[in-house]
């Protein structure tokens, strides 16, 4: 087992190293085979590990490879921890990751940085696996930072574009703020509970309520808001769409951004103990879900819509975490990975067909030209909108039911957010695929379906988006909630739905009715009335303008954070740098110059004079010896 886990993690690293060092010399098909093959093998090994885990004691496998950090009380092993939670995560990471690697072969085929791209992508998978498999918070942090690095590298993949580099830096810096919280949380966790290893922390009674529990939970949550793009650190994710589209699918939709949820679920014992922290998580998640959903309704860049949709869906997951419905959130992570990866890959296929155009105002009527992409995206759109029996419905409904039980106000936020989700997703779908083409006849001739290396992953993901709900069919309809029970041994303090069946049916009905109403509204607006997003900002109403400009949050951050720092920098530059430091340096050099000019005069170049000086000096020295 130790070797299987090692293989799962190290194969992508090996692929990354080979492609990174030798990629220029290998042919494109070899690069693609190595990159996809390593992830594919890793996926196969993950399945084997998953099967073996079922027969393991307590469904936990803990492997220590060597002692990594030993210092005083701190004892951190380098090893892997495979349990219900991480086994699901590695399946999603390697499975969806494999499909996205295959898709990338088609998408990136014309790119000069083909081998570099795959090297980064493999490296990302390696770090992501480290993150979820590591058996202590420190190992998790290694992966946490590593995926941040890969995210930075891939957002700025086309580094010749300055705006893309800025987006990459923004993502990195925003994550850094969150990471500070993570480190502090980890330190406090260690001080309070004496260990950072899951093995120690998972012992019964290892975690009890102390005055520091809430602080630990909130600090760790700050880390999660950075990585998982929640208020107040969400603004990097929409900008991260600068990277290649498959990267957005893998990193910024399916896997990396769900690391925050993984971390909170991993620390569920702490969050369950602190009501304050849970409430904060819930409120932040709920508000983010609604906030991002509102912004998404007026975006016109197909990837930006999906980015805000991701932020909103992540918000929904945190809302579930706030209600201590951990397994429901993990369920939503998985279904979301399916349909959101599909949406991004579909968007990539659309962008591919449109020759790089991302503006939905220039699209329309694409369903005839690219039917496979259209059908698969339609499935994903229905899934994310929460229409039964597609996967998104079950996971979202489970979260909302738990939230209803927890706090009705937060539940209202979640329901409005998911209604908006249905609205903006169908707005995107109608504007992209329905109606008539608005991009000009020149481009219309160019339109073509993507090669099968791209469409087959779309189809597989479409199937998964449809049937993903089977993982967690609600007990309400007489099914066994498999994922809920599967995660039982990870979640230390369990929450069960105490709602009566009639209320559950009612909640389900409200959610479905809301989604259908939103879709009908979008249909009325964009298909029957043929409303198009305006080209000119001036035609927007004042409230639309605010949403169009994303509530001016970037501008606000610019004003309250960047400007003061800029100003401080200028003051320091003017005063300290120019006056104090330069003054000190200049005066030292002028003193030296002055002394040199003076001492120079002793050297008159007369040998006799030198000898006399020498003789006198010797006499003086000798006379001093006693």
């Amino acid at each position, binding site marked *: 087992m130790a070797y299987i886990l090692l293989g799962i993690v190290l194969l992508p690293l090996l692929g990354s190293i080979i492609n990174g060092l030798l990629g220029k010399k290998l042919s494109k098909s070899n690069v693609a085979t190595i990159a996809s093959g390593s992830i594919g093998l890793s996926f196969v090994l993950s399945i084997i590990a998953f099967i073996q885990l079922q027969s393991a004691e307590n469904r936990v496998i803990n492997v220590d490879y060597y002692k990594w950090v030993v210092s005083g009380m701190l004892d951190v092993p380098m090893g892997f921890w495979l349990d219900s939670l991480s086994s699901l995560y590695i399946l999603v990471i390697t499975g969806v990751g494999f499909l996205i690697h295959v898709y990338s072969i088609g998408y990136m085929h014309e790119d000069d940085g083909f081998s570099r791209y795959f090297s980064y992508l493999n490296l990302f998978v390696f770090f992501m696996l480290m993150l979820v498999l590591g058996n202590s918070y420190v190992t998790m942090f290694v992966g946490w930072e590593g995926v941040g690095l890969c995210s930075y590298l891939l957002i700025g993949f086309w580094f010749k574009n300055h705006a893309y580099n800025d987006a990459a830096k923004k993502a990195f810096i925003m994550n850094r703020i969150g990471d500070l919280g993570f480190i502090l949380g980890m330190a406090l966790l260690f001080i309070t509970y004496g260990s950072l290893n899951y093995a120690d922390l998972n012992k019964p009674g290892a975690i009890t309520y102390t005055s520091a529990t809430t602080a630990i939970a909130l600090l760790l949550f700050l880390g999660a808001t950075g990585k998982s793009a929640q208020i107040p650190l969400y603004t990097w994710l929409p900008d991260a769409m600068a990277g290649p589209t498959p990267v957005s699918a893998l990193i910024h939709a399916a896997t990396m951004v769900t690391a925050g949820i993984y971390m909170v679920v991993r620390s569920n014992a702490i969050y369950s103990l602190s009501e304050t922290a849970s409430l904060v998580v819930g409120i932040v998640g709920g508000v983010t879900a609604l906030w991002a959903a509102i912004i998404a309704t007026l975006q016109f860049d197909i990837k930006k819509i999906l980015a805000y949709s991701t932020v909103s869906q992540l918000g929904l997951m945190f809302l579930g975490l706030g209600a201590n419905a951990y397994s429901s959130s993990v369920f939503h992570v998985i279904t979301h990975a399916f349909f959101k990866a599909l949406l991004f890959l579909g968007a990539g296929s659309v962008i591919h067909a449109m020759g790089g155009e991302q503006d939905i105002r220039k699209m329309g009527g694409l369903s005839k030209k690219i039917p496979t992409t259209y059908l698969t995206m339609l499935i994903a759109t229905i899934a994310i909108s929460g229409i039964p029996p597609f996967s998104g419905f079950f996971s979202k409904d489970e979260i909302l039911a738990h939230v209803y039980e927890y706090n009705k106000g937060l539940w209202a936020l979640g329901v409005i957010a998911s209604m908006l989700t249905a609205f903006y997703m169908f707005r995107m779908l109608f504007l992209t695929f329905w109606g008539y083409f608005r991009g000009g006849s020149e481009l219309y001739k160019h339109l073509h379906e993507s090669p099968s290396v791209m469409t087959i992953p779309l189809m597989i993901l479409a199937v998964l988006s449809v049937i993903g709900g089977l993982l967690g069919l609600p007990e309400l309809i007489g099914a066994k909630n498999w994922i809920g029970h599967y995660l039982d041994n990870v979640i230390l303090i369990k929450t069960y739905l105490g709602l009566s069946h009639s209320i559950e049916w009612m909640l389900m009905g409200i959610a479905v009715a809301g989604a259908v109403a939103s879709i009908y509204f979008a249909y009325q607006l964009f298909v029957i009335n043929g409303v198009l997003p305006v080209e000119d900002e001036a035609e927007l109403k004042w409230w639309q303008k605010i949403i169009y400009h994303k509530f001016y949050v970037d501008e606000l951050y610019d004003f309250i954070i960047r400007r003061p720092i800029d100003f401080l920098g200028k003051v320091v530059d003017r005063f300290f740098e120019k006056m104090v430091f330069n003054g000190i340096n200049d005066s030292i050099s002028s003193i030296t110059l002055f002394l040199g000019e003076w001492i120079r005069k002793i050297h008159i170049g007369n040998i*006799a004079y030198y*000898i*006399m000086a020498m003789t006198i000096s010797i006499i003086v020295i000798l006379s001093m010896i006693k």
Partner: protein
Amino acid sequence: MINGISIDYFILLSAVLFTIGAIGVMARRNSIIIFMCIELMLNAVNILLVAFSTLHQNAEGQVFVFFVMTVAAAEVSVGLAILTMIYRNIKSIDTNLLSNLKD
């Protein structure tokens, strides 16, 4: 006492010779004279070494003098070669003219 002569006189002779040498090196400009003055200083030291060697009935000092004389001979041969080169370059052996390094 060496052969009835007090050691003081040897020291005095040596000191006088050394001082003459030292002043000569400092005051004269002719390189050859400076050379001779250096030899004078070396020999002043030699006298002292021999005198004390005899006084203490210890041959080490006299052995040392041979070394000094050998080294002095070697030094003179090298020094005179340098002087010859200087003369070829500046047609003079006046040390005050050798001030090219000053500026």
